[in-house]
């Protein structure tokens, strides 16, 4: 997916996320008297330019999906801003928000859950056209068929129900639904994780084609570093609700600076059996986002030999190490 790199300097990025925080409060205990706060997203900042792809990796539970939904304003943010083409979605009035929604769309992970089982594919794709009054009647039918063909589905798929299709075909239908409203940014939340490897490649190629043809920007979320490398020229690594490292894919994959990124990369299988690499195995599980550790969120599992008192007490900020390469580690 070789869209042009970042936006031309001087023009503002398409999507600008600044200090985004999303906390969920839930009541627990026998009578719901105890409250606990899940700190799903904890101060995330990044930007995506037009025709650019940002890959976002992290293990399950690190807040990737919540981040995706907060970007689309599907969950309330606790603080911070999400600016799309300069406008803060949270500040828009409901009618304006609905109009703005056209411009950023989402493709979900589970192609079985993301399509309404009681709606034909055609009606699902048509929904966006109707909501935004883009087309009606025969013109809408024509647009639906064109969209289905564009994503590689037969035109008569419009009359079929989701359960009549395979996972890959459903994911294509989900992409067609998102494209119907002609978005500029597509948030792909693990779009291929539920698919067979052979089908993954087809869907990834489709996304790459669409980017070129339609000039799309992608926020591409995945737990699979190999997939992200294939797709994104720029990658951000997320751990426990925070971005711990962000940089150009080449630099980040060749020389990861954050101990967590190093551990993640050491776990990616290498197709060459003669290559031997030291595998970094992290002790323990990620801490609960209800009680994130003080200091560096990664310190309880950090294998860095120079780990010291600072790591336990002071949270490292993302700092620039090389142009466009930011790391949140005291020892990097």
């Amino acid at each position, binding site marked *: 997916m070789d869209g042009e790199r970042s936006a031309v300097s001087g023009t503002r990025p398409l999507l600008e996320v600044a200090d985004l925080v999303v906390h969920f409060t839930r009541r627990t205990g026998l009578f719901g008297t105890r409250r606990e706060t899940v700190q799903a997203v904890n101060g995330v900042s990044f930007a995506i330019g037009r025709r650019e792809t940002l890959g976002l990796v992290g293990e399950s539970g690190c807040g990737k999906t919540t981040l995706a939904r907060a970007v689309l304003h599907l969950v309330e943010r606790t603080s911070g801003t999400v600016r799309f083409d300069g406008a803060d979605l949270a500040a828009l009035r409901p009618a304006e928000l609905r109009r703005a929604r056209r411009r950023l769309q989402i493709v979900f992970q589970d192609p079985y859950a993301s399509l*309404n089982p009681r709606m034909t594919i055609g009606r699902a794709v048509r929904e966006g056209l109707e909501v935004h009054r883009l087309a009606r009647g025969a013109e809408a039918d024509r647009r639906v068929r064109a969209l289905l063909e564009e994503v590689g589905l037969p035109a008569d798929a419009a009359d079929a129900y989701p359960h009549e299709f395979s996972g890959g075909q459903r994911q294509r239908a989900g992409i067609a639904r998102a494209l119907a409203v002609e978005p500029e940014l597509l948030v792909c939340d693990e779009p291929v994780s539920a698919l067979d490897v052979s089908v993954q490649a087809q869907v990834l190629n489709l996304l790459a084609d669409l980017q070129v043809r339609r000039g799309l920007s992608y926020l591409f979320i995945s737990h699979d570093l190999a997939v992200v490398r294939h797709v994104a020229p720029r990658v951000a690594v997320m751990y426990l609700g925070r971005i711990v490292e962000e940089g150009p894919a080449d630099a980040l994959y060749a020389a990861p600076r954050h101990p967590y990124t190093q551990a993640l990369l050491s776990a990616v299988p290498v197709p060459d059996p003669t290559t031997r690499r030291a595998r970094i195995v992290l002790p323990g599980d990620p801490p609960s986002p209800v009680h994130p550790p003080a200091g560096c969120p990664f310190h309880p599992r950090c294998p860095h030999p120079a780990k010291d008192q600072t790591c336990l007490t002071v949270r490292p900020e993302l700092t620039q190490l090389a142009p466009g390469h930011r790391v949140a580690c005291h020892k990097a």
Partner: protein
Amino acid sequence: MRALRRGWLRFRAHRAAVAAGLLVAVLAIAAAFAPLVAPADPLAQPDPVALQNQPPSAAHLLGTDRFSRDVLSRIVYGARVSLGVGAAAALLAVTVGALVGLAAGLASPAVDQLLMRSVDVALALPRVFLILLVLALWENAPPWVVVLLIALTGWFQTSRVVRALVLRLRESEFVQAARALGSGRPGLVRRHLLPHLAPTIIVSATLDVGNIILLESGLSYLGLGIRPPAPSWGNMIQDGKDQLFSAPWVAAAPGLALLVTVVAFNLFGDGLQAAFDPRDRR
């Protein structure tokens, strides 16, 4: 269309439900066309002395009661009351329940809590005593009052079930996708929520009809529902209970009609449930 046909295949597999559905249809038609179906006027008393408590015969297929009225005709007209009250009250109850459930499921947590805790309180009230109290104070209450009382005390369970479904659906990815597309709340409800709630609502309404018919008969038996001389299965059983041994058909015939109808509605409801559930592979 395909989904509809598969649903019919699943429903058909439940033989008892098919029979029950036919029976419900026959009853409904008989009730609707009672003047054509009934052999006699249900209120006519041709000869209260000579023709009272006649056993079943060719002239009176189910005999006559102590006022010489034709029992079969009274059952047919009584079906109007039973099915009418049952259907009207069930429809009203399920509508109110679905609306409250939808509102609670989509509203803010505070409103949701308020609605659901009120439902908890309402569920703790003894329904039958509440209805008896009002009907005992309101003498000769018209049938619509009975319908209203039954409906307004019968929607709580439906509202809970609908709310739970809405909460689950609200978080599903296809609803999230629709929100991302910019669908407003009315569109979400119409396109994504109602099609998923409809099976539950329809099944719940069907099962309710049986229960409500039973409840109305109980009220009429106690003399508080449909008042004589208008025939209702409940007040007919009441009428016949004094001659249970000398003329058993007077009480037994409406009793049997009641039993069969309630069982039919329950079986029909079960069959519908299976028809709506794609996982049912019987």
